[in-house]
């Protein structure tokens, strides 16, 4: 155990420190923040045997390059399908590897996904705000943006040979349209607007950051020039501006606002949607709030099982070879 010092040779925009987030302050204008894709974030920690919810780095499409200056540390990279370059080898995200003094690591956008997570077998030193290191991107409060030229200090850094290799990806995440509960202002839209929202395709635009994702698609007309009193917004609110354009609000959303909301995306699907990229088509489907609750509860149970499964150490290389030989030697397998 020791300290690992990683120098940031390059960090794209919107690469930030995130922990599980700071819920409980929305009444003061502070959203929970935290990872855009909570499943991938949790998987990175589980694969290292870390405590859930501790700080990791969220990597945007801009990518991140690190150079290990001191010490060594085992780390996990999850989320989307990013390209990982290390020690002359090119792999993809969903992997655990060790970074030693003098080595470089590059993580960049691959074929799919908007956010990757980098977690360490050790403690990432970072600034705290309101009891959390999650970065609120608009203010920079919390752990903050990772900047080119800075150093990341990992204390209690360990090497975990028993955890190296590919991380199995979750197989239970939904693949269909994004599920949403209509409202709370669906009755303030033109009769056809809700039907169009649920039947026509939208496209993710590049007006996409941690606050929200603007969509291109059918314009959703309001029933009259309506302005509603500013009201609370949640992660997943689909608000429609005066020109009929829909935006899905995400981890760093404003906490109140006066645009009517046609629907709210259910919590497990906000994170699925967050991994999509500009140009990708999006379809929504309506679920009742009871169905939403049932779907999310099932997701949480499956997620807990999955995290438990990937958190079991695979054993040393030697142990794995023995195990694989045994398995392959078994006639009934």
């Amino acid at each position: 155990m020791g300290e690992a010092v990683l120098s940031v040779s390059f960090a794209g925009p919107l690469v930030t420190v995130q922990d599980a987030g700071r819920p409980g302050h929305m009444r003061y204008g502070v959203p929970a923040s935290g990872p855009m894709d909570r499943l991938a974030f949790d998987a990175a920690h589980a694969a290292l045997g870390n405590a859930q919810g501790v700080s990791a780095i969220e990597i945007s499409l801009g990518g991140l390059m690190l150079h290990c200056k001191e010490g060594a540390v085992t780390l996990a990279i999850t989320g989307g399908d990013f390209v990982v370059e290390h020690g002359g080898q090119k792999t993809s995200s969903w992997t655990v590897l060790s970074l030693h003094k003098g080595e470089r690591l590059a993580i960049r956008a691959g074929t799919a996904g908007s956010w990757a997570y980098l977690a360490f077998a050790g403690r990432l030193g970072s600034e705290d705000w309101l009891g959390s290191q999650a970065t609120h991107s608009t203010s920079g409060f919390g752990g903050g943006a990772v900047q080119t030229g800075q150093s990341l200090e990992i204390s209690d850094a360990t090497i975990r040979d028993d955890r190296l290799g590919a991380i199995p990806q979750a197989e239970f995440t939904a693949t269909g349209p994004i599920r949403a509960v209509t409202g709370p202002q669906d009755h303030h839209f033109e009769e056809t607007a809700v039907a169009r929202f649920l039947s026509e395709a939208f496209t993710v635009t590049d007006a996409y950051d941690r606050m929200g994702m603007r969509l291109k698609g059918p314009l959703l007309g309001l029933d009259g020039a309506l302005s509603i009193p500013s009201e609370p917004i949640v992660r997943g609110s689909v608000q429609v501006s005066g020109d009929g354009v829909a935006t899905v609000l995400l981890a760093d959303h404003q906490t109140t606002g006066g645009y009517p909301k046609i629907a709210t995306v259910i919590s497990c699907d906000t994170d699925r949607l967050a991994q999509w990229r500009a140009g990708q088509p999006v379809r929504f489907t309506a679920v009742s709030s009871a169905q939403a609750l049932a779907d999310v509860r099932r997701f949480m149970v499956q997620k807990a099982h999955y995290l438990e499964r990937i958190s079991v150490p695979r054993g040393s290389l030697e142990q794995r070879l023995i195990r694989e030989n045994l398995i392959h030697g078994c006639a009934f397998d």
Partner: protein
Amino acid sequence: MNARFTSIADHALLVTFADEISDNAHDLVLALDKALAANMLDGVTETVPALVNLLVSFDPVVTDHSKVETHVRQCLEAVEIQAVKGTVRQVEVCYEAPFAPDLDAVAAAVGLSTDAVINAHLAAKFDVLMYGFAPGYAYLSGAPEQIHVPRKQTPVRDVPAGSVIIAGAQCLITTLTMPTGWSIIGRSPTRILTGDPKHPFLFDVGDRVTFQRIDLATFERLNRETAHG
């Protein structure tokens, strides 16, 4: 009272008292907020008071919309319908150049002298209605009608933190360098984000706020003190 309940996705319930802004609706929001805080239901993670409604967020694994609705209905039966008396807070403000770039334009727009605008702002008692837009952005209501100005056509970029801005009946002390379409009439050394972990936000929703005029030298001194904690 008639409360309307709307399920928000899998994890929240919106309790709405009116479609239009009124003192009565906001009093109900605050009274319910207080009642829920005193009588927290297992699984409720936070409540967010706004102008005519209150959001109750919950952990969908622990509770559900109907349990939360039943609990809110019980709280509403027992709730005392009266204006919640918040703490009175005083905020210092310097109305001098270079901190009040829009003061002359506001004065011209409403047909008053700049001193009359300042005095009207100082005489007003503001209520903290809700937070929004960004951390610590508390919407204060109560600007007297004679200084009501609409938002600008185009927002101004990079307005410094601590700016005292007005639009319509509302006033706000900014906490971040951000764009705004509101009129900038002064600068305050008072920090809404206090930096005190025990009381990180100066106002609670329902507090009453008055402004106190300070000159440039006092601003500089107080601003240095708050900057160094």
